[in-house]
């Protein structure tokens, strides 16, 4: 495109516009392709959820038949949920209502705490000067790298010691200390946060915490939006910690991923169509919620460009 720079204005504009259109079309094709790759596995999941076991694993006469929904959807749903026709193994391992309620509760609480306190911490580390500031920043950077697998066992032993197992507290409260989120906020504040504004607020006699709430938070909004989705999704999908901490095995207490894993790993459940239905039930509402909120999320991200 460099070459257009020296041409007469009219030709430049016409060529330039055409060129942009071609570019746009090419990019659109690439994006459509990537979008199909993104959706295909999810589509297959939904397709499998509507089929009977035999149709999923049997030999298909036509390979494309694997991409077309089957007719067993109602049966699969019944197997999972109906107290009459249901498979008792499924009913014992899977309950949509409890799963969603518990997972939503944990995810929303943890997500809110994680984003708010990380913002607070990052704000504290950016706006103020204090002795331990550099130490704290380096510390957060370092601890971000601790492999969860090992810490979690020490964590579990400790939770059992202080009798916090079978309880949502150890699933929610630790979200306050999320080094990766803090690190993101720090990086974000470094690039967009106008420190002058804090000074200005002080001159206006605004308290420090109020400054954070009324000036810091709105500016951090885009970062909040991004990290909020990540935190929510991470907590929603977290299987490892809840399965370690919720020891009682009470279905009423289990989270959605625990139920999905229980269904997928269960040797005695051989109805593959129903297994897929379980997975589908667990993700479709999330996808729907995500689709609704995505407007705000993308809006939030765009907000950053306007404000920043």
């Amino acid at each position: 495109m460099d070459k257009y720079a020296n041409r007469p204005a009219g030709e430049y504009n016409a060529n330039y516009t055409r060129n942009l259109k071609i570019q746009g079309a090419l990019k659109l094709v690439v994006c459509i392709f990537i979008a199909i790759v993104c959706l295909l596995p999810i589509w297959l999941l939904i397709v499998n959820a509507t089929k009977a076991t035999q149709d999923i694993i049997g030999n298909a006469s036509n390979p494309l038949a694997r991409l077309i929904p089957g007719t067993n959807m109602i049966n699969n749903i019944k197997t999972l949920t109906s107290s009459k026709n249901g498979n008792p193994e499924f009913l014992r391992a899977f309950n949509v209502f409890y799963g969603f309620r518990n997972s939503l509760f944990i995810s929303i609480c943890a997500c809110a705490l994680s984003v708010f306190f990380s913002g607070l911490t990052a704000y504290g580390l950016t706006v103020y000067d204090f002795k331990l500031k550099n130490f704290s920043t380096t510390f957060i950077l370092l601890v971000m790298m601790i492999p969860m697998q090992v810490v979690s066992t020490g964590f579990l032993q400790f939770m059992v010691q202080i009798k916090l197992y079978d309880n949502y507290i150890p699933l929610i409260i630790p979200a306050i200390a999320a080094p990766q989120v803090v690190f993101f906020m720090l990086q974000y504040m470094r690039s967009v946060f106008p420190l002058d504004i804090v000074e200005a607020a002080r001159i206006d006699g605004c308290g420090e915490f109020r400054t954070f709430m009324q000036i810091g938070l709105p500016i951090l909004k885009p970062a909040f939006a991004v990290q909020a989705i990540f935190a929510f999704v991470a907590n929603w999908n977290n299987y490892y910690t809840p399965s370690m901490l919720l020891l009682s095995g009470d279905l009423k207490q289990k989270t959605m991923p625990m139920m999905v894993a229980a269904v997928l790993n269960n040797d005695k459940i051989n109805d593959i169509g129903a297994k897929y239905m379980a997975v589908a039930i667990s993700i479709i509402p999330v996808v729907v919620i995500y689709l609704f909120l995505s407007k705000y999320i993308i809006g939030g991200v765009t907000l950053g460009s306007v404000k920043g």
Partner: protein
Amino acid sequence: MKNLKKKLALLAALACAGTMLAGCGGGDDTTGGDTAEGGDNAAVDNGGDSAETTTMNEEEQAAANEAAAVELADDGDKLTILCWTGDDLNGMIDMFCSENPDYAGKVEWVQQGTAGGEAREQYKQYLSGDGDADLLVLEADWILEYLTDEYTVPLSSLGIDKSAYNDAYPYTVAIGTDEQGILRGATWQAAPGGFVYRTDLAEQYLGVKTPEEMQDKIGDWSKFEEAAKTVAEASEGKTAMTATLGGLWQVYQANRTQPWVKDNKLVLDNAEGFIDLAKSYYDNKYVTDGTQWNDGWYALGQDGSALGYFLSTWGVKDTTASVLANVEGCKDNGASWADNHGLYNICIGPQNYFWGGSWLAVSTKCDNKTIATDFVNFFTTNKDTMQKYAETSGDFVNNKAAMDAIVAAGTNSNSLLGGQDQFAVLAEAANGINMDGLITKYDSAVKSSFNTAVTDYATGVTASKDDALNAFQDDIASKYPELNWD
């Protein structure tokens, strides 16, 4: 082990101090002696606090059991059973409570995980908290881990001793016995295995019409291979004799004559033979490329890729959820079936073996002695109730007299097997299983690690037999550095 030894040594020392008996130096031998270092072997008999004896006769054994008994509380609220198989337990508890109306509503189960492997980990976490647990359901592969003072008390604490299990299949008692020879676990079910095969394919390729004829064709390993060759040739490689290498290994390893770990060393025994067998079976298509418990496992029988499966009692139960039911294509939870329904028969196969099964052990937390005692007796020692349970649930109960009575009555008929009585075949197999001195706490890891190494060699992931053996030994070495590797 160290921990256990320390505790034993402490016990021995306490016994010394308390009774001022001479000859208690033996207690030190337990902790320091070379034999004790190899004490992971079930054959080493260190009976409780009478540590100075190296071998014990049955009387002494009984005495040791008696001595190890622990006083249990009896003021608990409900009998709580820790398990990962709520389905089985539901049926058991229903029957127990209907026979003992006093206990109705006083027995419950708590599920930990959904597979045995998961339960193994989660029990420990559950038990370290203050959740209630009176009985534990344990799996053969890792039962030894829980048969220690830390988790369980000897069955003699319920007043049940070894003599109550004279009618049980001996291998089940061997597995329920801890490293000191104390009985801590008993099972309600025996899990002898057989070979289930598609009768139409067997007739087509082997010309057999009855299970007896089939047994004649595959009665030992060389016959089995011969038959496999016939099937592979007649079907032009479309049908393999058996489904998976894993299943084959489950059977083949039962002809071991030595424990996997002896004198703290890994013993290969017949393992090398299996590597050759597996490779030639795989290359010649005597076995399919499928994997157990995988989605394709059931399909192998449905489309005729495999003529038969090695399955044990729980796999051929006449329900809509058993392995065989899935192989035969049970649809919509039993509402409809594929054409293969009832198309299978069972015979013993080349080798007696067992596969799986669950044991009951008494938790150290048990505070319902009376109900616990009744429950354990109901399902593991009482012939009448056990027979009734077998008849209603289709489970193969761990009582020779009960099983013989059912077989003799000839009333059992399995619709999955076209009406054949699997108990008649499997009871014979169960009598032929001998696990004496063959059980070690390493078995679960060793068996599955070896299976992986062999499968990798057969399917071409590892290049040579030596590589396979090395990969296997390295794996065990990294899992158990405490073994002797000189």
